[in-house]
């Protein structure tokens, strides 16, 4: 022992026996000069067993170049050296009950030995196991929380998707509830709603409102002679032809079996007669094809308007149009008739 005898070292470093940190001191030849009580407790190796022997006898990894090269600068009074727990895990493997090894954070500092003008290397080993485990536990908890958040986010996204789907279905359902399945026109129920709305609007806006009731002539015979599928085809085609004539603001509905009701907002009697006539001729003059035969279908149309006929209630406007339709049927069909309290005026 050229620098410091082992017994002198025990005296000199006795204070380190009271430290809760693992300490050992190496001589420049890597022999152990001092081994504190904490390390005795961690490793089960008594000071008397290890002092005087090279540290690499019991801990061969400390003889590897990666350690030797950094430790030996200490003997020349070099700067402190750190061995962190992540890059080195254990400088001095010290098992815990259960066999796991302590995580260690080690600092090596140069201790001057003035008597011999040289330096020893003091190793101070902090046990960072509980810190490492606490961080790992925290990380597990954090991961779990993040996973839960992600799960919640997914569920919420699903919910949004379902809500959208529900809205879409509701819209479809609503659409279906106001439409006629065969022709795609508005149904009877929706027509009443629009009739009431447009009637009130026409009063408020001091505008006219015309109502046309249209009935296919002899439709029962068409069905009987050519079959119901053809009858349905005629209904669809009539709906399409009306649709091409009226304005976007007009409301066309299938009022009954072969009966159609049309509301023309802002239209007076003269305008309504023109529109009705156009519809009548567009249907009556162009036959419907069936089994390479042309079938001619005619319509009768009754008209009533607010300004001309002054119905007190929306239902009265419809009733006047119905009366006019009845008159059109009575006067030989395939014609347009405007309501007249005394009987009606053919066009």
């Amino acid at each position: 022992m050229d620098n410091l005898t082992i017994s002198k070292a025990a005296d000199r470093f006795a204070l380190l026996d009271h430290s809760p940190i693992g300490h050992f001191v190496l001589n420049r030849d890597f022999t152990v000069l001092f081994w504190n009580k904490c390390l005795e407790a961690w490793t089960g190796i008594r000071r008397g067993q290890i002092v005087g022997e090279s540290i690499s006898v019991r801990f061969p990894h400390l003889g590897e170049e990666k350690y030797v090269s950094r430790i030996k600068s200490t003997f020349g009074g070099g700067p402190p050296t750190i061995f962190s727990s992540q890059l080195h895990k254990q400088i001095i493997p010290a098992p815990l009950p259960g066999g796991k090894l302590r995580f260690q954070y080690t600092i090596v500092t140069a201790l001057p030995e003035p008597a011999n003008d040289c330096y020893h290397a003091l190793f101070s080993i902090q046990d960072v196991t509980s810190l490492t485990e606490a961080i790992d536990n925290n990380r597990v908890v954090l991961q779990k929380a993040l996973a839960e958040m992600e799960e919640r986010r997914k569920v919420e996204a699903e919910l949004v998707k379902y809500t959208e789907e529900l809205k879409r279905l509701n819209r479809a359902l609503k659409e279906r509830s106001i439409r006629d399945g065969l022709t795609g026109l508005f149904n009877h129920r929706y027509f009443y709603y629009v009739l009431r709305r447009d009637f009130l609007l026409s009063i408020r806006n001091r505008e006219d409102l015309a109502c046309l009731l249209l009935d296919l002539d002899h439709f029962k015979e068409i069905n009987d002679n050519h079959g119901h599928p053809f009858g349905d085809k005629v209904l669809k085609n009539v709906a399409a032809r009306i649709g091409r004539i009226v304005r976007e603001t007009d409301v066309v509905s299938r009022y009954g079996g072969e009966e159609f009701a049309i509301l023309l907002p802002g239209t007076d009697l003269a305008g309504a007669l023109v529109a009705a006539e156009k519809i009548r001729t567009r249907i009556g003059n162009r036959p419907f094809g069936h089994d390479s035969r042309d079938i001619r279908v005619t319509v009768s149309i009754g008209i009533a308007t607010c300004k001309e006929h002054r119905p007190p209630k929306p239902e009265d406007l419809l009733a006047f149009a119905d009366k006019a339709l009845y008159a059109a049927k009575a006067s030989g069909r395939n014609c347009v008739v405007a309501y007249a309290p005394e009987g009606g005026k053919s066009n």
Partner: protein
Amino acid sequence: MPADSRFHLDALREMVITGLGQAASSLNMMLDSTVELDVPSIAMLTREELLNGRNSFGNPHLSCVQVAFCGPFSGRALLTFPPLSAARLVAALVGDQTHPSDLNAVTTDTLSEIGNILLNCVIGTIGNILAEPFELSLPHYLEGKFEDLLQPDSRPATPTALLALTRFRTDDHQIEGNIILLVELGGFNALLSLLEYSHPPQG
């Protein structure tokens, strides 16, 4: 830039590169992966210039390993990173890519060791080349705003700073940090005269 400043910078750059070369071989011996270290740029700045240029550090909040040195001139050496880069560097060096954004007491200890190796090698090399040894403190890990990291004490001395951009290249990553040497007032003059003594300018 005056010719002699360029000469000083070149000499300093050479020293920093030599120091980092040693640091890299030390790191590589410890790690499974390979680390290359280089210095794309180096500059001498006053503290004010350093503070004015702090935006170029990319992050107002920095992770920093700091070592105090004392010798022919004294000061502090800082290795700084944006915290996320610091965490990525540790993850790359430890070979654990599962938590590359995690900076905690254990990973900052690892950063302290990296700073310890790097800064010891850089200051040690400067000392060796100047044949004037330095005493170095234990590294301290700090996080904070750049200006706070520069001024942890209120000493009136205005140091001059040497700023070296340092690039760590591992197999899959490239991470940039800065080495900053803050030299106490008058220290740089001592350094420069030592440089001229040990590295006389050519021509």
